[in-house]
């Protein structure tokens, strides 16, 4: 996403602020908000339109010659700016549903449409581009590369987009500032706590300014305090950026903080 050509102007901002990425990104945000106020940029949070639409989706896996129905005709709609929690017991199909929404998998039958794009119509290259620009993933096990510094880890999605190093570093640093890890940018993941790592992973997921953030058990490996902070972070992201957030969780306390809770059982919404 590049509302109002903001990315194109990052270098201009960096030059203006003597390559200070924090100042540059703050300025960019002000610029983006201003553009939005002028009506040139449409904030997703402001519209409340349907962003994600799943229609009668089924998913069948073959495991050891046995067919397993992970999803059995799921239909749902999620609006822009919504925070939705997918809950259910293990094997209920919530992660499968998340993967379908994220374009990592395709439904056996039915369809998944995001921003009026039918994902099953996209071939691998387009689907990859779609994921890169539209979706941000947050995982239970964080998956930060242990041998990359935190700032470089955050920059990885931008690397696949082919952005310039200077721009990428500025954006990554600004996001780390945003999640409270500005002072840890040059550290390696092993030097961070679990909560900090997950915040860095969220920063990474936000790098390409996705419209959708998909989080699979984002607090599964965190204690209550850190879990609370992560949820707070999600809310503030939604509030500031209008990002639609879908969280898969077992934790009812976390789920309660979502705008809406969708419960799955044996592959159907209950």
């Amino acid at each position: 996403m590049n509302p109002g050509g903001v990315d194109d102007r990052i270098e201009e901002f960096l030059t203006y602020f003597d390559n200070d990425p924090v100042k540059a990104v703050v300025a960019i945000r002000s610029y983006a908000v201003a553009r939005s106020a002028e009506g040139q940029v449409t904030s997703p949070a402001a519209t409340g339109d349907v962003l994600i639409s799943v229609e009668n989706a089924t998913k069948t896996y073959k495991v050891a010659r046995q067919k397993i129905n992970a999803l059995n005709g799921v239909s749902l709609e999620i609006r822009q700016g919504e925070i939705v929690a997918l809950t259910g017991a293990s094997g209920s199909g919530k992660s499968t549903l998340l993967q379908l929404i994220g374009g990592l998998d395709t439904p056996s039958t039915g369809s998944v449409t995001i921003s009026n794009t039918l994902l099953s119509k996209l071939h691998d290259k387009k689907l990859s581009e779609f994921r890169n620009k539209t979706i941000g993933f947050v995982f239970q096990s964080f998956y930060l590369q242990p041998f990359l510094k935190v700032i470089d880890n955050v920059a990885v999605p931008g690397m696949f987009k082919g952005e310039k190093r200077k721009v990428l570093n500025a954006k990554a640093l600004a996001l780390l500032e945003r999640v409270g890890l500005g002072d840890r940018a040059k550290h390696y993941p092993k030097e961070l706590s679990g909560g900090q790592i997950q915040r860095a992973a969220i920063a990474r997921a936000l790098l390409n300014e996705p419209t959708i953030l998909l989080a699979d058990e984002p607090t599964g490996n965190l204690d209550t305090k850190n879990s609370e902070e992560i949820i707070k972070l999600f809310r503030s992201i939604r509030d500031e950026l209008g990002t639609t957030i879908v969280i898969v969780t077992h934790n009812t306390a976390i789920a309660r903080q979502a705008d809406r809770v969708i419960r799955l059982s044996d592959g159907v919404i209950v």
Partner: protein
Amino acid sequence: MIRLGYALTLARTKLNSKKATLLTSIIVASILFAVLIAGVIMFTGAQKSAVSFLEKANNNSYLVDVTPVLPEDIYIGGQLESLEELNELKQREKEYYDEVRANYKAQRIPYDASQEVSVLKPSPYFEENTPEALRFISNFQSPVVEYAQTKRMEAYVATAKNTRASLKKVAAKYGGSGFYSNFYVGATVPQVTLIHENKEDFTAKMKSDPPTSHGYFINAIHNNAYGIYDDELLGRYLLPQSKPLEGVSVIVSAQEAAKLFGKEKGIGEEPKEAQPKAVWLKEVQGKLNGYVYQSCERNSADRALLDKINNDYVEMKTNEGKKDYIKPSLLYNLPTEPCGAVSVKSDTRSAAEKKFEQDTIDKQKKLGTYVAPTRTLHSFQIVGIVNSEDYLQAQDVQSFLKTLLSVNNLTSNAFIPRAQYESLPDSLKIEGLIGKDQKELMSDPAKLDKSLQQQVVSFKTIGEARAFMDNETCTGDNWDCKRLFRANPHGSNYVLLEDIGAMFQKVMSYALPIVLGFATIIIWFTMGRVMAENRKETAVYRAMGARRKDILTVYLTYGGIIALYIALLSVAIGVVAAFIIDLTYGAYITSIATASFGTITEGTRFSLFSIESPYLLMIIGAIFVVSYIAMIQPLIRNIMRSPIKDMRSE
């Protein structure tokens, strides 16, 4: 598409995956390639050094010994081949004795036909189906055989297509430019004997210890075996002239010179090891350069007198005390000084005996066959020293190296440089020295005509010399030669060197695929393990929007880094190994090479180190190719994998 810089950033993180396996693979693959690299560096160094020694020794040229191939039927053998040959020999017999008779008649001497020896004699053995007319063999006691052989040679030479002139035309097509000759000087011991420690050994015989050409070469002074060579062929052995020539200049073996004259100059025994031997050789060259020695040449009549003294002595010793034994009526004393004349000890001949002997002499004088006993003192001056090695004994590494590096066609005689000889004042020349080879007609009919003698042709490159030899001549021991010339490299083993180059290429053609095969398996295994370990990470990248091309780029970059490490490490190991080997053995091989190639190469180092082979680049290229080939299978499997499978294990 991911930028190369980012691919490099992500690829570098994978170096930490399966670190021990990766490190082991890199080291093993590097050692395999390092062996090849070290081999190439050392071989290239050795080849270049050998060529520089060769070029310095041969004045930047490659010499080829060329001998005309004479038809087999030109030689008169024992068994008669055909009726035509029988008739030819009968015809020659008639011609020969007609000439002799005419000579007697001209001198008015009565001719005794009973003295004629027939060119044919009955064959003691023959097949039953042999025609009666052919049941004869050549009689080598008859002077007619030599006469007939000469006539055959004269007829051949008149139409021969392998004369010196023909050779010049043929060799010129391949770039042959210089034409040199060498020939053997006929008179040897016992006609000529060495005066050693002011004594003349009247019983001296040919010596060869060991019984090889090496054995003859290291006894050439004793044997009085000399060959006259164009100076261009001997430059490598010549020492700086230390004083004006006082005799015929000669180049002799260090071994014989030291044995005969070393004692008075304080030269010790020849060491066996290469490096002390090089020092010894230098000492021999320094102390015996310019040394003058003498030999005494006695003509056949004078030699016959010495033989008579020896025979009479043996006869008298055998019959000592026998009453009916009558001593020879004419006895001589051995000369009392080197190269002196014999003196009469006792003369009890009757008047009739004296008259008969005088008549015989008078008759010989009339026929022009009388030879008066004469002797001449010849002076020789050493102007060059050759280190001679017995190549037949080449069984250890050192001997192999010597065989590889040095001259392989030293003849059995010492060398006289032609130009130096011709510049001598007449008083120092040996009368008729150049031309005495004519006497060797029977042993080598080619000497009848100089144009059929062995020639040495020089070429500018090994390739030219090789092409000439391959296309126009028979080489080596091919005695069933159908071509006009037989040829062998002269003065060095450069063809062997080229053969070894070809052999090295052949070895490389086997070794390279084997090493590449092993390296491919090792890298394939490692890549497979690394990629398996990074599957989840790949899935996460895919979730972040990485395309298959991006993942491919990251892993190809990773493969490039691995290949670079292997290349750097193998080059480092190979270079260091070759350097250490060169450092350890370079001086040793240099001393062998200097001893083998002659004094002219002093100052040239034999190095086992050269990085100028195109093979090195090929090996480095192969490392990258192999690394990428080894990656194909695991990489395709990895990028074609659905990320969801690996995500699901989450």
